[in-house]
């Protein structure tokens, strides 16, 4: 008997599949569905998934008291260039902010390098006279007489949207606001994005790019969100609809339609949120989330139950996995490292005789050779199949016919032949290379963040995360892994654990020792008002939480360190404590402080959020008992490289307290957990699988 009161629905629309999850009041998953995404009308696929889970639960629309939606639509519109015709208006004399960018090649040895397409061609970049200085003082007034001519030009260019980015508008937005109002008189149909609203940070190239990206997807997203809401309302949904953002919070449809750039990359953020909530429930303060799907793997560092955040990421890269090859977007995001390693990643041998795996992927269509859907390149999934780690009959609940011979043939032809290896050895080698590259990316990401991987708990999910977790963890010197329930739809589950929130980051350059606290407090008051207004519309009654930070550095350095501020007006007596907090964090990251150096602050952040929904609890682990396998399979051991027998278990059969020893395979609908020979597994009271590396198995 399922209680149908207070059900909450999460819908994650991805490029290929739409994941739908239904949770009850106690935050238990009641039903899940994976339905094909319907690119023409994405809301239709979402409706199908929602109907599916409600049906499974014997509930109907009346019982739904919350709907949280995440979508890759904005991301895909940017990647596939399906946005609006967009123009820019920048300060006179600075037409080429976009063309000049950072003057840099993203790949050192690539002579024939092509720079990323930044959406707006030079023909569509216009300028207007008027200048603010760095403190927000007007150097010369806005050339209002020129606006009519600009409007005429914009009409001739037949643009639908315009991105306005004037120098130092983050310090004084008066010219941007005035320009918008004047343009509205001449061209009322134009969709306008203002840089100081989209991304009020210094650095004109980044701010312009962010504003362009927002303007570019805004008409499309506004239309989509309206369609989505209308269709769900027609079905009888009466609760508010909230949208998942890249920063890991939820926001209203109204804010989403105004700032659609904040919806980009919201799907993966859901996975990190889920991992953070599990970390909290299990009191694990240092975690790495590991989300491996068909095309990529995404890693996120989670400390003290908060996913690591960043203020910048890249979209539409010219080379997908090369940093600096894309368009920077400066908004608050959950920081993830994404590498081209997934089940569909293709293996090949380069001209030096080195085995390469990824970043190219066969995806799910044509997919791995074993899928028999036209793919003939050997992939990571083909290797896992050959290693015996995937049971062909039970893959994707038996809905996909798996052809192990096709996998063997592809491995032989493209890897085994050139390297003089048999198919088993070729598969083993592919696993070694891809697992090392994921572990290496994790280590690198930790170093760049001033953190360490050792002693972290890995929380693994996604279609391939549980399958590769032990192999990656071992290479990253991580000894403990947790596989949550429903790992295949982890992102959608994560949506239901997100708070309503909004974060503002704004530039204001100052030295710590000469801090103007009065001006700064007014500055924070304005940020707080802006953020609260957004959050209140999505969480009218909730008590609101606040988080204030300063991004500090030694004068002369390029790298800033985030320091938490008290949630109140600052006084001069706080300066000493801020300096001390900076020095503690600096010496943690760089092992020593630099005495006598001036400390400066360029950016300030303020986040307002509702309290997160129901706290996950983890019942006591009951007495351990040996789990009973349903059978066994021959697998190629990842430690010894020799064939041996592994027990096979059904995840559904494993009760809390179940215990088993590797090598073993734990099979469920959307994935398999591989327990390597040096790991054992236990199931906790919440149904999480814990994998622990055994001391004696270590070298």
């Amino acid at each position, binding site marked *: 008997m399922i209680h149908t009161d207070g059900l909450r629905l999460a819908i994650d629309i991805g490029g290929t599949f739409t994941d739908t999850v239904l949770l009850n009041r106690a935050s238990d998953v009641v039903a899940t569905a994976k339905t094909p995404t319907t690119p023409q009308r994405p809301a239709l696929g979402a409706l199908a998934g929602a109907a599916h889970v409600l049906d499974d639960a014997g509930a109907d629309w009346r019982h739904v008291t919350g709907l949280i939606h995440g979508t890759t639509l904005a991301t895909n519109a940017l990647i596939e260039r399906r946005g609006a015709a967009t123009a820019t208006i920048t300060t006179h*004399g600075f037409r080429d902010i976009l063309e000049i960018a950072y003057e840099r090649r993203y790949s*050192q040895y*690539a002579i024939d390098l092509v720079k990323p397409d930044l959406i707006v061609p030079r023909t569509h970049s216009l300028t207007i006279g008027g200048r603010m200085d760095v403190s927000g003082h007007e150097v010369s007034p806005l050339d209002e007489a020129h606006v009519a001519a600009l409007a005429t030009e914009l009409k001739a260019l037949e643009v639908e949207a315009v991105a306005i980015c004037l120098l130092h508008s983050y310090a004084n937005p008066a010219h941007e606001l005035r320009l918008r109002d004047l343009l509205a008189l001449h061209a009322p149909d134009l969709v306008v994005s203002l840089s100081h609203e989209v991304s009020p940070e210094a650095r004109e190239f980044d701010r312009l790019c962010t504003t362009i990206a927002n303007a570019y997807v805004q008409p499309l997203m506004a239309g989509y969100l309206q369609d989505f809401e209308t269709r769900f309302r027609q079905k009888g949904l009466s609760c508010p609809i909230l949208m998942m953002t890249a920063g890991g919070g939820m926001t209203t449809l109204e804010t989403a339609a105004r700032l659609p750039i904040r919806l980009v990359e919201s799907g993966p953020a859901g996975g990190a949120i889920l991992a953070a909530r599990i970390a909290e429930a299990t009191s694990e303060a240092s975690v790495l989330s590991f989300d491996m799907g068909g095309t990529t793997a995404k890693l996120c560092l989670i400390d003290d139950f908060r996913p690591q955040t960043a203020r910048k990421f890249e979209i539409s890269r010219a080379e997908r996995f090369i940093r600096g090859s894309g368009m920077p977007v400066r908004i608050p995001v959950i920081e993830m490292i994404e590498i081209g390693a997934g089940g569909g990643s293709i293996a090949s041998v380069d001209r*030096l005789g080195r085995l390469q795996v990824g970043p190219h992927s066969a995806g799910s269509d044509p997919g791995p050779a074993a899928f028999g859907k036209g793919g003939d390149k050997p992939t990571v999934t083909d290797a896992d199949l050959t290693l015996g780690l995937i049971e062909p009959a039970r893959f994707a609940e038996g809905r996909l016919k798996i052809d192990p011979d096709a996998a063997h043939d592809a491995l032989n032809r493209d890897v085994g032949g050139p390297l003089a290896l048999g198919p088993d050895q070729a598969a*083993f080698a592919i696993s070694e290379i891809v697992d090392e*590259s994921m572990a290496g990316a994790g280590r690198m990401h930790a*170093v760049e963040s001033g953190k360490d991987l050792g002693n972290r708990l890995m929380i693994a999910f996604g279609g391939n995360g549980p399958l590769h977790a032990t192999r990656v963890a071992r290479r990253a010197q991580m000894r403990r892994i947790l596989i949550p329930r429903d790992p295949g739809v982890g992102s959608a589950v994560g949506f239901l654990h997100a708070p309503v929130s909004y974060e503002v980051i704004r530039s204001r350059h100052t030295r710590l020792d000469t801090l103007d606290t009065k001006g700064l407090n007014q500055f924070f008051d304005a940020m707080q008002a802006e953020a609260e207004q957004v959050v209140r519309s999505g969480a009218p009654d909730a008590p609101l939480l606040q988080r204030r930070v300063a991004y500090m550095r030694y004068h002369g*350095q*390029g790298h800033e360190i985030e320091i938490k501020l008290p949630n109140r007006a600052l006084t001069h007596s706080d300066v000493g404590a801020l300096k001390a907090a900076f020095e503690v964090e600096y010496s943690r990251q760089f092992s020593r402080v630099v005495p006598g150096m001036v400390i400066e602050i360029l950016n300030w952040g303020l986040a307002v959020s509702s309290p997160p929904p129901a706290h996950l609890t983890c019942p006591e682990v009951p007495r351990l008992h040996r789990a009973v396998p349903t059978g066994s399979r021959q697998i190629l051991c990842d430690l010894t490289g020799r064939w041996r027998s592994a027990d096979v278990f059904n995840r559904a059969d494993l009760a809390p307290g179940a215990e088993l020893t590797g090598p073993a395979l734990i099979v469920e609908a959307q994935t398999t957990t591989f327990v390597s020979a040096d790991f054992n597994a236990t199931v906790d009271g919440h149904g999480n699988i814990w994998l622990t590396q055994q001391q004696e198995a270590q070298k």
Partner: protein
Amino acid sequence: MIQSDTRLQVMWNRLLAVVEEQGQALIRAAFSPIVRECGDISAGIFDAKGRMLAQAVTGTPGHINTMAEAVKTLCVRFAQSDMKPGDIYMTNDPWIASGHLNDFLLMMPVFYRDQVIGYTACTSHLVDLGGLGMGPEGSDIFDEGLLIPPCKLVSQGEVNALLLEIVKANSREPIANEGDIYALIACCEAGSDRLVQMMREFDISDLRALSDYIIETSRRGTLAAIAALPKGTWRHVLRVDGYDDEIELHAALTIADDHLLLDFDGTASCVGKGINVPLNYATAYSVFALRCIIGADIPNNAGSLDPFRVTGPKGCILNAQPPAPVAMRHTLGQMTPDLVYGCLSQALPDRVPAEGASCMYDLPLRHAPEATDQFALELVFNGGTGARPRIDGLSATAFPSGVWGSQIETTEAVAPVLFHRRELRQDSGGAGRFRGGLGQHIELSATKNQDLMLFLSVERIKNPASGRDGGLDGAPGRITVQPGNRHLPGKGEVRIRAGETLSFETPGGGGFGLPEHRSEDAILTDVQSGLVSHEQAQNLYRRQK
């Protein structure tokens, strides 16, 4: 069975990841703007014979080969039998480390089971080493600041305090220097720890099999790339602006069956200002240029670098000898790719780009001596790159250096300057079937009633970037002061008075192929975008009927 080559390859990948990690750690902790904006650092791992196994791909090519040679030199200087765990060696000798005093190189022996099994090394650019400061005005190396010969900086974990005090006492930025040296020490130690960790994990007791595998695989790949090239010797002369007088750089490139030899014989002698280039630095940029075309996909190590040999007569400006001043060795060092490409394009006409602006357009600004408001800015604005054989050049983009340009808003936040313009220079890209990249036009003045000091060391004012294969030259650089249209030479110290505006126009890249072969579409797009004027489209691209 575990296939051994795969294991070796996994370890190779691990070493490449470790050096990148080291490099990132160094950049994050750095105080020098050139390090954080350009990643002007290097990190590498070496075997017990001092052969380089892996090197981080960092922002600038100035450390390619340089570091490999430096570690070899230190390995000869200090006997392995005298080394103890926790020892770290250091030098900033331009002829050993990286061509000028600002670059500090540290090297640490890595011990495993009481044996030296390899070395880690790293290099970083320190802010200030005293002397006249970073600029071309020194007349010998002694004017340029403090030189520390190879020595032991850390002895069994104990830092030589006196040495550190000497470095600090001889610098205008003692705290930043100390911070950077500690970052270098941490970088060596972290690399050493990671290397030992990897050896434990893979259960190996030395690096012999691994280093043979890396070096042999890389050498084989490089030789295969060389084997596919035409054989012979090609010569080229590049005329550059120099300090007072123009200078000729000569090169002869020989492609043999198993190596390439670049010889600077014929190149002009050193001059009395600090634009002379030690051979290690000229080699770094020359080899970088060659490796962009030949075997670009093979990582830098002893095997891939070995077939590239560079030589030049002692005392020529590309093989400067002590005590020649070398502070601004990058001005001409960064011109060597165009010199090398002048040779290589004769052998591979359809693979080598036209000449570009090449030398980065530094705009170091400081307060005037009498000013109360003190500041120092190290701005970089690049010109255009040469057109490629099948594609236009890149506008306002660094090549061969990997330096990042500056942002106006952050620059105005740290110094009392106001920019009036930063736009591409119309018609500055050399015309051709493929057009050279455009330079940019900067205008700025002081925001306060005070003078600005500018320290110039740029090229291509008198000698623009040449086109190739019928392509025309890019526009030369042009630096003027308004009002009055006072033209400035490319090198030397200039005072910009309060109320004056500095106009800084960077050079365009050369074109590739005959302009009349450019497609109508491409010309139309250029004109519509305003990159090329109607007049230039008429005059330079008019079809020959």
